[in-house]
């Protein structure tokens, strides 16, 4: 090629002039020097520094932590989204996602509502140790469990179990506060009447507003109880809902709720696309899952070698992410339910169990990447954390 041949092309000189002018006046790059990063931080901050401004006892086992921002700014969120708290408890650095239970129009604080989990490292810490004035570090709001106006119908059938009420609380409070044009049927399942969170507020709201229907469903009711009993079955739903047309179904709660209710909803004839399911952490008792190899016991212990890093032991019945955290290895995490891909790492050798349906990219599977929050060691492992 002849060097600089393009200098002979028609129009070359015009462009040389153009470049001179643009260097003199500046192109759009010059205005972008004032960084857009600050704007992005207002929407999606990496970390929030929050202060516990109030602690509200909701039930004997549940409290709401009211969190205000240390720099007086809280990013907007969609009702139903969560924040992940980043904590160090007894020397273990870990994280937990909590749905925001306050509504988005409340710009002064985020509420998170925490129920005690038996032997739960984080819930017991938040309920027993954290006190007013303490600082908590969190992610920005995240998650895909929200009313999507492109997809969802105005009539929302919300099915909650236990502490799965929290995202719905945010949605319902927003609907009331912002006078949104929606119709809500909330089926809320709990073991006993004492476990119901936000019961008084939900009763009050449903009495006052025609478009909010609240149907508590109690598994083990006291003798005096007159409401719906048992599980949230299709019969319970059919009694309230005239039909399933033009409705979107939302469901949030423990695995047992999904195992029971999802088939019930499907049996009513609701197509999968109309059902939105929230994540709810790693499944408990993973060893009872379909596909778990019977020769591996939940308490079996395996060696995990981190390439260019330390060696540790991990229990089969415990997510790899948790074993890493217990040994002082911090892997970035957010949803801790297999969905967000933050805790992705590579298995170089050895086998892990991953429950069906965890969304891992096709090519990630090919190259041995797993979401460590829902991966359970079945053999000795060598892993790569990059």
């Amino acid at each position, binding site marked *: *090629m*002849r060097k600089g*041949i*393009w200098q*002979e*092309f*028609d*129009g*070359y000189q015009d*462009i*040389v002039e*153009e*470049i001179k002018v*643009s*260097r*003199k*006046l*500046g*192109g*759009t*790059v*010059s*205005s*972008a*020097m004032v*960084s*857009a990063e600050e*704007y*992005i931080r*207002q*929407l*999606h901050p990496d970390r929030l520094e929050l202060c516990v401004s109030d602690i509200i006892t909701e039930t004997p086992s549940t409290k709401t932590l009211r969190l205000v921002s240390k720099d007086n700014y809280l*990013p*907007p969120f*969609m009702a139903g989204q969560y924040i992940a708290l980043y904590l160090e408890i007894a020397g273990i650095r870990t994280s937990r996602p909590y749905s925001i239970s306050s509504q988005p129009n409340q*710009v002064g604080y985020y509420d998170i509502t925490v129920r005690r989990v038996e032997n739960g490292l984080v819930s017991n810490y938040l309920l027993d140790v954290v006190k007013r004035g303490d600082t908590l570090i969190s992610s920005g709001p995240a998650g*895909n469990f929200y009313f*999507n*106006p*492109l*997809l969802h119908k105005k009539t929302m059938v919300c099915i909650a179990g236990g502490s799965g009420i929290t995202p719905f609380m945010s949605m319902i409070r927003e609907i009331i506060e912002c006078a949104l044009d929606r119709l809500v049927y909330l089926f809320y399942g709990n073991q006993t009447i004492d476990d119901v969170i936000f019961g008084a507020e939900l009763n009050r709201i449903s009495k006052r507003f025609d478009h909010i229907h609240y149907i508590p469903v109690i598994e083990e009711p006291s003798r005096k109880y007159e409401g719906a009993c048992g599980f949230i079955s299709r019969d319970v739903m059919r009694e309230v809902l005239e039909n399933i047309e033009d409705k979107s179904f939302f469901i949030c709660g423990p695995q047992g709720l999904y195992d029971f209710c999802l088939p019930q909803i499907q049996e009513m004839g609701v197509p*999968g*696309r109309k059902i939105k399911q929230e994540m709810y952490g790693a499944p408990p008792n993973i060893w009872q899952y379909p596909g778990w190899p019977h020769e591996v016991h939940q308490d079996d212990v395996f060696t995990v070698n981190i390439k260019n890093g330390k060696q540790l032991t991990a229990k089969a019945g415990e997510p790899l992410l948790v074993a890493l955290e217990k040994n002082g290895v911090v892997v*970035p995490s957010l949803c801790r339910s297999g*969905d967000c*891909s*933050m805790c*992705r790492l590579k298995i170089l050798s050895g086998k892990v169990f991953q429950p069906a*349906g965890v*969304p*891992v*990219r*096709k*090519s*990630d599977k*090919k*190259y041995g*990447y797993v979401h460590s929050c829902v991966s359970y060691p079945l053999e000795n492992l060598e892993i*790569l954390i*990059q």
Partner: protein
Amino acid sequence: MNAFDVVVIGAGNGGLTAAAKLAQKGLNVLLLERHNVPGGCATSFCRGRFEFEVALHQLSGLGTAEKPGLLRMELEQLGVLQDLEFVEISDLYHVAASDGFRITLKTDRAETIAVLQDKFPHQKDAIQRYFDLMARYANDMISTFIFRDPEASRDKYPCLYKYALQNSKAILDEFFSDPLLKTILSLYSGYLGVPPTRLAFAYLAMLFFQYMEFKPYHLKGGSQALSNAILNKFLSDGGTARFNCGAKKIIVDKGQINAVVTDDDDEITTNYIVSNVSPVATYNHLIDPAQVPAATSVEIKGRNLSTSAFTLFIGFDCEPDQLDITETTNFLISTTDISDGIRDRMNRPDIQDDFMLLSCYDISDPEFSPPGTCQANVVTLKYGEPWLRIPPRRYHDVKFRCAESMLKRVEEIYPRVRDHIEEIEVATPLTHMRSLGHPFGAIYGYETLTKDSLFFQPGRYSPIQGLFFAGGWTGDQGFEPTLRSGISAAKSIIRRLGAE
């Protein structure tokens, strides 16, 4: 060990190929990436049972084993070709207008000419002459720039000399009078991010030529498969990658690269850096301003940022035929205005008469989405700057309002889509700004104006010794150019090291 032969900052297309090439040559290479997955734009994300492709529409430069394109040759030399599975796409694109007009341009040149002549009989001769011109232009270009004819001259390559730097609209106006025909033939300008009024004919002609000669391809597993394959090769060649860890600072001493400080405050000694970060951020945020030559600052500030994009990722609970989607690549149009009015539309957040591209990969690759489902990636080009004027608290409302207007346009062409949506995700220019870190969410880097093309700008080179660039900011945009840009940067470094 805190010294590397080369540090590559950013694991986008250009960063990945640069790192892999350097490691293949036995160099000790560190690859830094602030995200937890490799790929930059070349990535995917999961929602429900869908894995959505983010960026790749039609991969160019592959060709076949018998008649390989440049990209195939380079991927083969890199040793990743056998890890990838490609599917040839039979169409250039389908055009669907809101008034019911439909046309499909095939990759076969004669077929496409015939289809166009059938729909536009009054422009029959002009169509033939225009495609002849594109072919002649491409031949001139290849003789001079690929085969490097030392005796190139105006007499020998008249098309090249006359047309290369002219804007595409001027040429279309020269050949055609029918506005719809001109619109149809200009639609690939969207792949380069500038309207035909500002796009050098060199680009439009070469894009057509590339796709007709070497065919467009779909990649099984999407672009993440490519990113993962290149990273895997890099690792198996002994490369070190650190994810969730970007570069905080580049230390320059006496005009020479000296070290990199990572986000973890790790100082790494090196004499060579491939920056897959924008030159804007490299020179303004990573390098001490005192070390940046004044001419470089002036050069950068004189340039324009490319458009960003507004995208819907839709997962459907049915096969494409139930939605009447029959082609992989579909341009949806509701106007034949290809003047600078396109730019005005791109500068408005709202979607009205914008050109839109709907890609349904399941047509070419029925295994792409789960059985009984399909997905569509619907994109239109939008500048990022107007989005910064939206108050953060209004952002979600604006995002969904724009998405709704986009969906309505899709419904005009494919009326049944709304009843089958299972998942839908919206990416705005701010989403791109956040995930790519590019100022104004510029998906293509610098604007592809003629003045910003490789003829006139520094490309991968820097006046700072040891610093090279790779990726969309260095020259041409799209998968093939960015992948190849990394190889070029790596080769430059290998040459320098060989000379030392």
